[in-house]
C-alpha cells in the first residue's frame, strides 16, 4: 500500500542573487533598517508551485505534463522528499525510489565495480544486497572486462548502461522518473525497456514527468497538467493528453 497526499501545497524559491547572498548585505540591512527592505529586501521569491491538491493511490500511473518551468521537477523533488513544501502538507506513505539523474555519484576515477557499490549505497542498498546483485548488474550492463577498469575509460554508452543497471536494482513502492529512460544501442534499448517495464509494473505508484505523448499514452492512466505552478488539469490520461497536446 502506497499513498501520496498533497494538501494545498506550495513552494517558494528564495532567489539569492550574488548580492543578497552575502553576510555583508544582511548586516547592512540590519544597520540601515527598513530602507532596503522596502525596495527589495534582498529576498526575491519565486512561487514554483501553488495550491496543489491531489491524492495518488496504488495502481496510479501518473504523467506530469507542462511546459518548461511549469514546476514538474520541483514537484518530483517534493515527492522524493528532497524539498519540503513552504506551505501546505505533503504526505507520502511508501518507500520512494527515483530514476532521476541515474549517473549521480559516479566517480570517474573509480572502477565500474567500485562505482556499483558507491551508487548502490547512495540508493540505500546494503552491501549484502549489492554483493548478491553485482554479477547480474555487470552482466546486464555488458561491461565484460571493463568492470574492473576506471569509469573514465568507458564510452558514454557503457557509462549509461552501468548507471542504468545499478539504478534499476531497487524496487520502490513509489517510482519517480524524469522522462522515460532510454539508453544504449538498439539491442540494449530493448533489454532496458523490458527491465524498466518490469519495474514499472511492480511499483505501486509511478510518477513520470514527460514531454512525449506516445510515452504518456503507453505508460500512464492519469495525468496532471501543470501550468505556472498550478494544476490546470488532473484527469484520466486520454482527456488530459487530448487537451494538452492539442493546445
Amino acid at each position, binding site marked *: 500500500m502506497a499513498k501520496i497526499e498533497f494538501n494545498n501545497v506550495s513552494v517558494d524559491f528564495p532567489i539569492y542573487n550574488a548580492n543578497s547572498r552575502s553576510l555583508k548585505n544582511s548586516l547592512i540591512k540590519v544597520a540601515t533598517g527598513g530602507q532596503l527592505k522596502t525596495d527589495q529586501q534582498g529576498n526575491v521569491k519565486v512561487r514554483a508551485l501553488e495550491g496543489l491538491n491531489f491524492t495518488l493511490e496504488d495502481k496510479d500511473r501518473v504523467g506530469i505534463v507542462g511546459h518548461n518551468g511549469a514546476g514538474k521537477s520541483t514537484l518530483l523533488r517534493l515527492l522524493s522528499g528532497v524539498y519540503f513544501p513552504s506551505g501546505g502538507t505533503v504526505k507520502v506513505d511508501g518507500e520512494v525510489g527515483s530514476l532521476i539523474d541515474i549517473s549521480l555519484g559516479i566517480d570517474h*576515477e573509480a572502477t565500474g565495480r567500485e562505482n556499483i557499490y558507491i551508487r548502490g549505497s547512495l540508493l*540505500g542498498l546494503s552491501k549484502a544486497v549489492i554483493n548478491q546483485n553485482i554479477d547480474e548488474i555487470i552482466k546486464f550492463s555488458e561491461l565484460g572486462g571493463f568492470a574492473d577498469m576506471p569509469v573514465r575509460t568507458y564510452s558514454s554508452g557503457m557509462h549509461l548502461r552501468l548507471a542504468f543497471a545499478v539504478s534499476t536494482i531497487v524496487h520502490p513502492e513509489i517510482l519517480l522518473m524524469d522522462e522515460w529512460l532510454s539508453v544504449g544501442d538498439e539491442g540494449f534499448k530493448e533489454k532496458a525497456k523490458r527491465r524498466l517495464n518490469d519495474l514499472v509494473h511492480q511499483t505501486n505508484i509511478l510518477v513520470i514527468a514527460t514531454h512525449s505523448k506516445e510515452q504518456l499514452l503507453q505508460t500512464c492512466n492519469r495525468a496532471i497538467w501543470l501550468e505556472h505552478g498550478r494544476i490546470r488539469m488532473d484527469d484520466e490520461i486520454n482527456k488530459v493528453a487530448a487537451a494538452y497536446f492539442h493546445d
Partner: protein
Amino acid sequence: MQNNSFSIAWLDLTAAVKRYPLITLLGWQDIQQRYRRSALGPFWLTISMSVMIGAIGLVFSQVFKTPTQDFLPFIAIGIILWTFISNIIIEGCLAFIAAENIIKQLPIPLFVHLLRMVWRNLLTLGHNIVIFPIVLLIVGKPLGLVALLSIPGFILATINLTWMALILATICARYRDMPQIVASVIQVMFYLTPIIWMPKTISAHVNSYLLDLNPAYHLLEIMRAPLLGTMPTASNWLVSMAMAVIGSLLALTFYGNYRRRIAYWL
C-alpha cells in the same frame, strides 16, 4: 517549536548513523579520489606532514632556543592535531555545499554529508598520527600510561568539532562568504593557540587571555597533554565538556530549525 527542531535534527542524526556504511564508503572515496593514480596514495598525507613538522621543528627550536627533545614532540603532535581541528572546521563549512548534487536529488539524511566529512578527517588523522611515535623514538622520549587519557579527550574534542561543523555547514549553505571568514579566523587561531610556541614561553598575564579564553586551546590540550606526559587541567576538561553538551544541544536545535530550508539554499 524548540523541541520540535531538536527532534527533527535528532531523527536526521539517527537515520544518518544507521547508514554508516554509506558514510564510511563516501569518506574513504574522498581520500582515494585525491590520491588516485599516485604510487604512494594516501601516504602522501603522512609524507607531507612529516616534511612540515621537520621543517618547522628545526627552525623554531632554534628561534625559541628550546631543546629539540622537548620541542619536536610538542610541535609534531600540535600540528597533527591542529590539522585535524582546522580541517573539520574549514571543510565543515563546505559539508552541505559540496554535496549539493546529492542533496538535491536523493533524500539522504543531511547528517550523512557532515559525518562523511568528519570520517574523512579521522582517516587523515590516522595517516598523520603515525608520525608521532616515530618522533618520540627519534628523540628518545617514552610514552607514559597517562597517554591513554588522550582517548576520551579525543572523543570529546571530536564531538565538539562536529557540532561546530554542523552549525557552520548550515550557515555557509546560506551565506557564501562564511567559508572565507572562517578560513581566516582559523588562520589567526593557529598563531594564537600554543602550537608552534610553548605556553611557558610567554608571561602569565598574557597566558590567561590567550589560553583560558581560547576554546581551541582547551580542545587541543585534552588530546595533546596526555600524549606529552602531562595531565590536562581541570578547566580544560570542564570547558570541553560544557561546550560539548551545550554546543550539541544548540547546534541540533539550530540545524533542526533550518533543516527544511537547506535544500533550497543550495
